[in-house]
């Protein structure tokens, strides 16, 4: 092992687990972006630091207005940060104009050039870089084949459907082979069926090109199914970065837990490795301050129903059953009135003869309950 190389491990490299080194494609360091002056200033980004790895599908997920677009615009160079830096391949590009950054964007509105044909749109980036005409045409044709639009190369963009325009925008942004592709809610204007198709298409394109994708969405399901890693944002901050599984199973705080998937929040009291709730105790992983008031987060699918007096279970009363086809949601109340929802397979809940008013016992899947400090 070359120790000197290891020792000089700089900020553009990080470890993604034991012994694995990955390089960082883009990084925001303490990025702040404020709009307006003085009292009326809005902090669209409030000290954001994030590292996006080479070749990954990274998603920025958060509600509308949390600063996702602003972060993309800082990376693309359409805005300059109020303070902080943007790094590309470890190089500070904060002062570079957008045309000098090897980063391309798929705009939410597509922003296709209406006076150019589909092929000219796709070749635009290469043409501006001064590549030879033949190479531009050749590459545009290849990109159109990649997005399966080769038969429409000579059309004007106004003659295309929404989904086709989307593909042209993708081909146009991918044609110059950028280091990073930025996608700002590219699927939100499409109907559900087309959106599902494009999700698969995007994953395929990312896989085939190997380009780092930074994808913005406010749709948690989209983020969970598509991403290698997700950065959850709220009010100008990145709250948690992790794999979809990490974020889903170990949300860092109440916002992340409630924004992604459905969650039961139960007030409790932590002591001696367990949380005291109404009617019982739940063992949890250690690490919380002894004697503090906490919130216990449990996903509905991690709640199991057992016999009313089974040892180690929490007593509860069934309030309501909501049928969803394969699943049935069972709404229950603990002895102090706090509500818990369990997701059960409909076949199971049917056989168990559950009905409103029934007394049951609750247990949580081992290790599933997360402690969130208040």
């Amino acid at each position: 092992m070359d120790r000197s190389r290891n020792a000089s491990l700089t900020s553009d490299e990080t470890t993604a687990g034991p012994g694995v080194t990955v390089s960082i494609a883009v990084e925001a360091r303490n990025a702040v972006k404020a709009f307006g002056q003085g009292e009326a200033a809005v902090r669209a980004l409030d000290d954001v630091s994030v590292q996006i790895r080479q070749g990954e599908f990274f998603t920025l997920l958060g509600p509308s207005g949390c600063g996702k677009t602003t972060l993309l615009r800082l990376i693309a160079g359409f805005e300059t940060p109020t303070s902080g830096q943007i790094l590309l391949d470890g190089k500070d590009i904060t002062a570079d104009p957008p045309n000098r950054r090897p980063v391309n964007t798929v705009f939410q509105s597509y922003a296709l050039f209406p006076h150019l044909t589909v092929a000219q749109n796709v070749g635009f980036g290469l043409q501006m870089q001064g590549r030879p005409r033949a190479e531009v045409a050749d590459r545009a044709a290849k990109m159109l084949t990649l997005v399966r639009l080769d038969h429409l190369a000579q059309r004007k963009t106004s003659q295309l459907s929404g989904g086709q325009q989307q593909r042209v925008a993708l081909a146009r942004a991918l044609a110059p082979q950028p280091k990073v592709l930025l996608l700002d809610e590219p699927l939100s204007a499409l109907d559900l069926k087309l959106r599902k198709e494009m999700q698969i298409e995007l994953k395929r394109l990312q896989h085939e090109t190997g380009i780092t994708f930074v994808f913005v969405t406010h749709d948690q399901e989209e983020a969970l199914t598509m991403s290698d890693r997700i950065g959850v944002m709220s009010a100008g901050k990145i709250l948690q970065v992790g794999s979809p599984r990490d974020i889903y199973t170990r949300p860092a705080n109440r916002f992340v837990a409630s924004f992604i998937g459905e969650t039961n929040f139960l007030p409790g009291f932590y002591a001696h490795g367990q949380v005291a709730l109404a009617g019982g105790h739940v063992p949890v992983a250690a690490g919380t301050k002894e004697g503090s008031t906490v919130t216990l987060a449990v996903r509905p699918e991690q709640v199991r129903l057992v016999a009313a007096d089974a040892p180690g279970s929490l007593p509860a009363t069934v309030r309501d059953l909501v049928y969803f086809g394969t699943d049935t949601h069972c709404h229950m109340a603990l002895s102090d009135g706090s509500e818990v929802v369990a997701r059960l397979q409909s076949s199971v809940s049917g056989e168990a003869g559950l009905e409103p008013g029934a007394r049951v016992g609750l247990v949580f899947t081992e290790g599933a309950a997360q402690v969130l400090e208040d």
Partner: protein
Amino acid sequence: MATRAFAATTIPGFAIVAGIAFFALYAPILTLVAYSFNDSNAISQWGGFSLRWYEAAWANTAVQEATLRSLTIACSASAIATVCATMAALGTTRRGAFRGQTFIYVMINQPLMVPEIVTAVALLIVFASVKVATGYNGLMYLIIAHAAFCIPFAYLPIRARLEGMDLSLETAAADLYANPWQTFRHVTLPLMGPGIIAGAMLAFVISLDDVVITEFVKSAGQDTLPTYMLGQLRRAITPEVNAISSALLALTVLLLTAFFLLTRKRD
């Protein structure tokens, strides 16, 4: 029905008022055109169909010279006005709101608001002293004066075109490695093209048609077509003036139709 949009067409007498308005607008013009084909010497007495006044006007050297002068001035002035208006429109629309925005708009559109006669007198005084100082007596004075009052007419359609153009297209061009000049050359200019042509045509028509400022600014022997016609009317009134007016009308209608088609067409 509970609510219905206010419709002016349902007011009693609407059709009559509209009819009268259209009649007042177009009857004189139709009469003018009809009498341009009059064989008689009298301006209001029908003497049969003939093209003689068109032939007479065509053969008249004074008319030829005035026409040539009018076209020279209109071409030069509309070209200058269009360049200025294009730059003004780019400067006022391809950016966010800025301090003094309204003031700049007012400054650009000033010729639309100041009475033409006031501008005419002002130019007369300024150019008189310039003429004395430089000794130059050529067409440049008329060209500059026309360019000045044509700018707002060129500016308005160009600005309208730019405002309807998404700023994100230029952002996209910059994202795709176009430097500011390439962005202008390959995206902004081609997209604003119809607006520029429309502005130029409007400026051309406005210049071609001007009487008041031209009358004040021109030196001796610098009659344009409209001022020549005005001079003729003061002396002997012949249907020749009708013929020239009709020809001018035909040209204007042609240009304005093209203007309408260009501004209406949205990609």
